[in-house]
């Protein structure tokens, strides 16, 4: 296990898209019936420090495991996502018709955890704390000591239509919080495995 490198915080920058066969893609986009979907897993573009937390402390009773790992569940600045770097035409972002965002993490506690909940937050880029913008909450199963549980939360325009304006602005904040109930003190190793963002643009996205 590599030590978290929290000093390397770097925005994902999938600029590979610049060399796509632009002509053919433009042809595809320059049609009234062609829709566009941009689907990106942001985890490969994050540093280890951004995706892994080796020893989040767990106390008897309720504890909170936040992502991004801010060190305290009281404030969570959120992770900034800029859709324009994902290949979505910036002029068309205002036309986003649907979105889906899936947060998936693995939790390995050193002490048994009872059932809990996990919440995904979507917030405007101007927000100082994503906790004020819960998108969806799911139940999490009990986890035995030393075992690994996967927590997966998906929010979309059906479950959180209020987030559509954030995505249409081109940038937004995302955060997650896992609420665990432990019988004793210990630690939990948390690894973010996926942060999958999908946005859909309507037919004619390549046309003025």
């Amino acid at each position, binding site marked *: 296990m*590599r030590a978290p490198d929290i000093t390397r915080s*770097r925005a*994902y*920058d*999938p*600029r*590979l*898209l*610049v*060399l*796509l*066969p*632009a*002509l*053919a*893609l*433009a*042809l*595809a*986009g*320059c*049609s*009234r*019936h*062609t*829709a*566009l*979907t*941009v*689907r*990106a*897993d942001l*985890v*490969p*573009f*994050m*540093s*280890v420090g951004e995706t892994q937390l080796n020893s989040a402390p767990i106390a008897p009773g309720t504890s909170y495991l936040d992502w991004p790992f801010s060190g305290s569940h009281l404030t969570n600045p959120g992770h900034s996502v800029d859709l324009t770097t*994902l*290949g*979505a035409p910036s002029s068309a972002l205002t036309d986003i018709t649907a979105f889906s965002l899936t947060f998936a993490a693995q939790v390995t506690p050193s002490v048994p955890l009872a059932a809990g909940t996990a919440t995904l937050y979507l917030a405007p880029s101007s927000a100082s704390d994503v906790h004020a913008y819960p998108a969806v909450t799911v139940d999490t199963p009990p986890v035995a000591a030393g075992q690994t549980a996967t927590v997966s939360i998906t929010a979309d325009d059906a479950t959180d239509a209020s987030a559509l304006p954030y995505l249409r602005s081109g940038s937004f904040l995302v955060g997650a919080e896992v609420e665990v109930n432990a019988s004793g003190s210990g630690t939990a190793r948390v690894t973010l495995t996926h942060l*999958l963002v999908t946005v859909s643009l309507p*037919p004619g996205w390549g*046309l*003025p």
Partner: protein
Amino acid sequence: MPTGATIAPGPQARPALVLALALALLATPSVFAQSARSLGMGGVRVPAPAAADVNPAFAALPRTGGASVTLPIGLLSLATGDYWNPNAQGFDALSALDQGSHLGQYLLNPAVSPDGVTFGVDASGLTIAFSGGSPMRLAAPTAFDAGFDLPLGGRVGAVTFGVRPFTTVHARFTPGPDLEAVFGSGSTSASGTLTADAVAGLAVDVGAALPLPLPPHAMGGATLYVGARASGIAGLARASASFQGQARAQQDSSGAYTDVTYSYDGTVSVGGITNGGLGYGALGAAGLAVTVPAGGGTVTAGIAVRHIGVMIWNLHQTRYQGDQNGGTSTDVGTVRSVEVAQHVHVAGNLALSLGEGHLGVPGMGLTLAADGDLDLSGGFATHAGAEVRFGPTALRAGAGYQDGLRLGVGAGVRAGGVGIDAALSSHRSPFTDHRAYGVSASLAFGF
């Protein structure tokens, strides 16, 4: 010159352009080298004076079949469809490109853009997937060639002459080997080369073709024909671009992306008569043909080379270079380019023609033909076809390879000195693996 045509007028220019083009086409024989007869035979060019653009020696062959006018019925599709109106619900740029580059055919099923495009970015790299529409063909080298020329001229004795306004468009996209994976399992790198060249100009053609005297009964009664053509070219406008680019996702030992780097380098050159960018040069063509009596019919074979010469252009060039840290453009200034022997073609044609009374069936005639055309700058086409004639009617079929498989069937009828030919043919649409079928028609007269 490549045949077909491509135009891109604005909505306001459409009626006038369509009318002017239609009138010009109707007034001029053989504007489209591929007549309905040729398309019905899989695209093969049968040796005849009408095929002198392929082999100048063919101009001296005995005239058979008369002249033909290929009807630009593709314009009907363009004029009545949503091709030039981006606001129309049915607007589809890929369909417009397909139909616009095949003006001699009314396409029944032009290529259709995909219903959806999905960009994917994940740990495996980039992926692109299309859904619906015509299957896109982007992982293999792709070419788009279109052109339009309007030969105006005639022949006096052994001498041919004429003027020929023309436009040509050549575009090539060559993906790097890593780009194929982008359309499959994903790739952390991508590279490719894109070149495009569009020229408009005026050619003045002067040629000669004549039979060479051979000793009586030499070569079984064969007749040898030689021909040559010289074309003075005035280039009125040109725009060309050439770009190479590559990108790569840098990964650390854990597989995480640490950075994405890319770079590109290319030039854009433009010029025209309005800004002193006039081009000039000369192109030549030479060919041989031979006819040999055989089995009551005639075997005709020919070989030719064309587009030999030099073009000189004075173009204003701008170089674009850049990487992930930014880009620069450099005004190179006026660049004088001397281009020798670009797009030299070597073509061979072969045909067996049997007249009525030689097949054991009264009134039945037969023509079998095949051709091959090698573009020394890249590209090869070949076709083979047959025509069976029963009195005034003819049935045709053929197949060929020209940027993909081509098929054709057709029929024709002659009566009272005029005739009409029709064909149903197919081609691979640009940038796709889609097979488009088109209907074409030609008028024949003077046979």
